[in-house]
């Protein structure tokens, strides 16, 4: 069974440019998370989906970040415009239900220069 797939693995962009990350969760997993992880820190939630509904986006900086999960499967996280402080690893995870064991993708390392 394929795990959570994220792309790209690495992205370098100039500040003020837009960037998008893609996540394909494990088949049948209704819960999908996007986390941000800074060096030496734990993952911090950006948004949680249950199927196609964003049920927890309280930590998402909505002025520049947006996300969607069309048809309750794949998800895209977008930043526009990117700032230097957005440099981090963006992790996608999925689980069968809220609070259950989460399976993580390898992450996308974003560098904003």
């Amino acid at each position: 069974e394929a795990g959570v797939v994220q792309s790209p693995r690495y992205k370098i962009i100039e500040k003020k440019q837009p960037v998008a990350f893609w996540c394909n969760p494990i088949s049948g997993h209704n819960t999908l998370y996007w986390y941000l992880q800074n060096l030496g820190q734990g993952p911090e939630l950006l948004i949680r989906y249950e199927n196609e509904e964003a049920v927890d986006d309280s930590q998402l900086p909505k002025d520049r970040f947006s996300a969607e999960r069309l048809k309750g499967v794949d998800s895209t996280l977008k930043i526009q415009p990117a700032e230097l402080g957005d440099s981090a690893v963006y992790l996608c995870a999925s689980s069968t239900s809220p609070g259950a064991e989460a399976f993580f993708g390898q992450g996308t390392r974003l560098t904003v220069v």
Partner: protein
Amino acid sequence: SQQGEEDPQALSIQEGENATMNCSYKTSINNLQWYRQNSGRGLVHLILIRSNEREKHSGRLRVTLDTSKKSSSLLITASRAADTASYFCATAPIGYSTLTFGKGTMLLVSP
């Protein structure tokens, strides 16, 4: 915001020794989970303990949960160099089903 807090922040031991790391959290939970993250890679789930359980084992891992103290410990016995990684506790608070992570303990196991 982060619900859990691991202690110590860093731990350095020799192969064959046991490693113990602790996690404290703030609000009542449905379950507590431990994850491992090797350098530059994604997180891997290790073990889940429910709020009505006190102890759980998986191979060389032993997890305890004390809900009265809002704390958990992860014991890795007979550690190996391959156990070198960061370890995170994650909680699923009651009434808030989002999995929330601590800042992690960085474990270094030297040959």
